[in-house]
């Protein structure tokens, strides 16, 4: 058995404050709480509480992972700044994890679905979306995260007829996607709520690949860069 990596995963990309901690024995501790608009206040106290619950000193951590986006810009920054600061103080690496990939992994874990179309409501009539496939227990990106109106979402013919599963708030209005895309979908999970365990699992894989980065380098994946109109 591989030895456990003590990692902390933080996600505040949506409406929750979600934490997952792998302790030095490999046991996973979690905390998930609806916290709309409260994340900046509650995140650090909740990390503190989870570490106490696991009887783990902060200094035992070997890496910090966070849901890097896409998601609420403010939420992404809350998790990112917290992850950066912890990693900086502890001299350990940060693992920014795509929230779309984490949704895909989480859904694979619970349903064994292997073709995952993740779409999140991006407001302003658009969705963040990406296309993922599970191969030999690992996540492959077919179409990386992007943002566009749902009716412009499309993917290569080569991926058709694959029992696609749609995950995320972007599918709440499934009729907004093109008839062809709608026809591809076998199952939809529009109410899925991202849990930090999925961030933790992907971070463990990133750790094994040596993909950690220095604290200050870890930044949110905003995907939407058009945040203003030039006058």
């Amino acid at each position, binding site marked *: 058995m591989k030895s456990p990596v003590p990692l902390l995963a933080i996600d505040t990309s949506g409406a929750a404050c979600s934490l997952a901690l792998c302790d030095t024995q490999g046991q996973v501790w979690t905390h998930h709480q609806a916290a709309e608009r409260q994340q900046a*206040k509650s995140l*650090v106290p909740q990390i*503190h509480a989870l570490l106490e619950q696991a009887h783990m000193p902060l200094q035992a951590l070997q890496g910090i992972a966070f849901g890097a986006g896409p998601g609420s810009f403010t939420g992404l920054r809350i998790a990112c700044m917290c992850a950066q600061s*912890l990693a900086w*103080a502890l001299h350990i690496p940060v693992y920014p994890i795509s929230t779309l990939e984490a949704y895909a992994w989480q859904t694979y874990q619970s349903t064994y679905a292997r073709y995952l179309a993740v779409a999140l409501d991006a407001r302003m009539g658009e969705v963040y979306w990406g296309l993922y496939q599970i191969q030999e227990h690992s996540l492959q990106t077919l179409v990386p995260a992007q943002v566009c109106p749902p009716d412009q979402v499309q993917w290569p013919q080569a991926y058709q007829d694959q029992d696609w599963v749609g995950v995320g708030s972007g599918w709440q209005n499934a009729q907004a996607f093109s008839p062809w895309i709608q026809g591809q979908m076998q199952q939809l999970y529009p109410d899925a709520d991202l849990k930090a365990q999925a961030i933790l699992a992907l971070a463990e894989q990133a750790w094994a690949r040596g993909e950690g980065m220095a604290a200050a380098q870890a930044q949110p994946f905003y995907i939407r860069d058009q*945040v203003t109109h030039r006058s």
Partner: protein
Amino acid sequence: MRVLGIETSCDETGIALYDTKQGLLAHALYSQIKLHATYGGVVPELASRDHIQRILPLIDQVLAQAKLKPQAIDGIAYTAGPGLIGALMVGAMCARTLAFALQVPVLGVHHMEGHLLAPQLEVNPPAFPFVALLVSGGHTQLIEVRGIGKYQLLGESLDDAAGEAFDKTAKMLGLGYPGGPKIAACAAEGNADRFRFPRPMLDRPGLDFSFSGLKTHTLTLTRQLAAERALQPQDIADIAAGFQQAVVDTLVAKCKRALKATGLKSLVIAGGVSANQSLRTRLQASLAGMGAQVKYARPEFCTDNGAMIAYAGACRLQAGQSDDLETPLRPRWPLTELPPL
């Protein structure tokens, strides 16, 4: 006690280390002026995105300057308001997380108290009590200061802040952003007496200000001139000089009134506009006449910076004040609500 100060309320990331025995150990600033210049003002989302890239590298820089390790930090102060909520949040998350990881106390500082106390970082710091004129991008206030946290509002702007008036007028004149320094530089080449500008609220008693009329006056004036012929650089310099003199006259007159009303002989000016050379010179000259004196910070500590936050935080942290990690941010926060030291 060594305090790390973090300022991210608007468009500058300011970091500093202040030692209650040795004074200011190091400070560093990253200004986003270029980032926002093309938009003619601060874009909040872009400001937040920039702070989160700068904050830790600046902390590293400040620690390296002071030749200290993170473990040497005994307390952390950050700007908790007033300011842009998204920008404040970045600094607050950094401060709270570092305080938790380093196991030191943390305190959310009032940005305007930071400005107000910045002159205390200078060699001849002002002694309490004094009258403070806070003149910045978002505030124009006269305050009677009896000590840290003992503030009484004497008067304030009923509309635009003085810095805002500088910024809007500069935009109108095509001088760019931020307007204060641009107007000041341009005014140096101009004749302040060529155009007549109003002196708002001087004819009325009291200590309140109003600057929006000046801005409208400038707009009307430029339109009238432009209708006759294209504006020449000399016209713009003369308008800038006239505008600046009107603002300075008004500020000086109200400061004198405030000193008379309170019977105090000491004035402190703070905030971005207090960097204005014409304001400094005029105040010095006219307060000398009434046996009073004016003090201010070096120009780089007039505008936003980390040193003032480290200092204000250090005063309060040393006195035993601190926040728990769940204290909310205060994007709007009257200075008079602060507890006394």
